């Protein structure tokens, strides 16, 4: 079924829309969640949560690209889930490594005093990241998004784009350095 038809069903509060969403994107969403969590059952739970969120926010929202809209939802659920798991001292997944890499972008590591960011800063940070990634070359932007949005492993990314893992690492390393400079320039660090 076409995305527009699915969205129309959701607008009509027809549960078929939800089933169609699950059938079409269930596996895809599972993969996104599993990359962050590293555990199959937990990922399943996130997919269900994401579908429920989709049901709750469409309408009023009408996503431009349904697939990416759902990916964002499931990513958020997976991140929250991951936080809970870390409190319970479990969980791994590719996200752990991706997050570790991002520490390079933050001066003095993660234990800085401004551990909590306020709403205004959050907004600015989002804006800065959006600008930064959009300004990267298509190749670098793709690789950056696969790693830090979708939490794919370096090996998966290398395979996806047919480049060597070393190449992916170099590109990511360079991008992180640039990101740090960009965030500094914006006064966010």
């Amino acid at each position, binding site marked *: 079924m076409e995305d527009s038809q699915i969205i129309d069903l959701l607008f009509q509060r027809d549960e078929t829309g939800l089933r169609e969403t699950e059938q079409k994107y269930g596996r895809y969403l599972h993969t996104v969640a599993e990359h962050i969590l590293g555990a199959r059952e937990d990922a399943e739970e996130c997919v269900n949560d994401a579908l429920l969120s989709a049901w709750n926010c469409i309408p009023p929202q009408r996503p431009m690209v349904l697939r990416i809209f759902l990916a964002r939802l499931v990513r958020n659920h997976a991140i929250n889930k991951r*936080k809970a798991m870390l409190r319970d001292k479990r969980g791994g997944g590719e996200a752990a490594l991706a997050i570790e890499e991002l520490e390079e972008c*933050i001066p003095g590591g993660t234990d800085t005093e401004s551990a909590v960011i306020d709403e205004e800063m959050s907004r600015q*940070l989002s804006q800065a990241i959006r600008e930064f990634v959009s300004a990267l070359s*298509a190749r670098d932007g793709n*690789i950056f998004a696969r790693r830090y*949005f979708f939490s794919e492993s370096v090996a998966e990314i290398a395979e996806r784009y047919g480049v060597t893992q070393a190449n992916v690492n170099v590109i990511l390393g360079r991008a992180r350095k640039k990101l740090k400079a960009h965030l500094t320039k914006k006064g966010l660090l």
Partner: protein
Amino acid sequence: MKSEELFEHMSAIDNEVLVRSEQDGGNVNRGKETGLRRRNKILFRAAAVVAAMFVIVSVAWIVKSDLFRRNAGTENERYLSQYLLAKAEYPEEMKIPSVEQYRNADGSVDYEQYDRAYDDWRRKVRQGRSTSTSLSAVVRNGIAVFTEKSLPKLFAEEAGKNRVYSPTNLYMALAMLAEITDGNTRAQILKVLGTSDVGELRAAVDDAWKTLYHDDGAITTILASSLWLRNDSSVSYIKETIDRLAANYHASVFSGTMGSEEYNKALRTWLNEQTGGLLEESVSQQSLDANTALAVATTLYYSAKWDQEFMGTTVKDKFHAGSGDIECDFMKQTITGDYYAGDRFAAVYKNFEYESNTLDNMIFFLPDEGVSVEELLEDPQVLAMLGCPHEQPQSKFITIHLSVPKFDVASDSNVSGCLQQLGITDAFTSGTADFSSIAENAKDLYLSKVDHSVRVQIDEEGVKAAAYTVLPLAGEVMPPEEEADFILDRPFLFAIRTMNGTPLFIGIVENP
């Protein structure tokens, strides 16, 4: 800030980047290009698709040899401009900046300036498009109605050969024909175009023209039309209609000696110019004879780049044509995308570059084993994917291993017979035909022929390799779970569509 928070905020990454990153690896692995930026890549990429077509509608008299004398006295070589009465106005589109414009004397490139110009271009192009990205319902439905009726008829002849046509452009040509006719002649044409009101059609075509026309260097859709008149006093043309065609149909108006080599040369020059020389061979056959009262010519030239070019070695493999196996070049690529499982076919589409915010794509329909391509021409599920109001087949977003033969297909045809089958008969019948909207003394005018010529080429920039296993897809109605091969190694149907499915070109490849 914690790195976790930074990670969480990656949610802010633009949709466009995320969608692009999913399209597949495609062109990212170009060792040589690592130092180049995104923009260069676009410029150096080979064109993926080029297509062009023209239609010539000639209106002739019943031959009355005493009425016309061929003006054979002209010896001067005349150029197009000498015949031009009114030149069509085209929108000025800002062209995509080129790296060359920013090259310094020492050969280096000022990327900062270039990037600024590029971003500026992109922003302006988007602003310009934001209000007109989809066709009006009148044209969309009209083209859908016309496609559904004409597709099986146009492709019925010449079975076993490559066939291709442009529903959108034939629609435009017929709309012009409706303008120059009247009475029942016009009513028959309007019916085929799915409307009953020529005024409504006129407004819709003007709107469609503006929506479809792109000439910004990234994607090119050039529609053009022209009107070829006589320069003697044997026909008194109605100025109001000519002005209307020039304004609403963006038609250039020419006037010359019908049947003269010079005037024919002007016609050919115009056709070649508007179609990028792609149809030179069939254009060279075109001429208007001395009995032509007027002719209408419309063209469509289309050129676009794949959003991700085909990577991997283009491999020689067998294509199972009706006449036996032939060897041809197959382009391979692994993509993530929608896989449609029809009752009698599978379909996959591949997007064109969306730098300029147009979301055109090319869709390939592979008939199941044992089903002929012709059987798909009236298949409601196929028609649904060409913008007609039917139910689309099931689809699933999966990994697809595409294998597409490189092809260059062309067809030349006189579509008069097909138009008559569709119900446009009066225009072709002398005595009955009513061309009173274009000429005062139109009693004896009738439509003598409608020539339609089309060519579509697809291409890649071949690089390196991956081999895939062939899995037959015959009989599968549910889309495959995770991955599928999609190998176009037997006759197939394709279409170049706009975002909402309106077909610009449709073709059958029997012999790539």
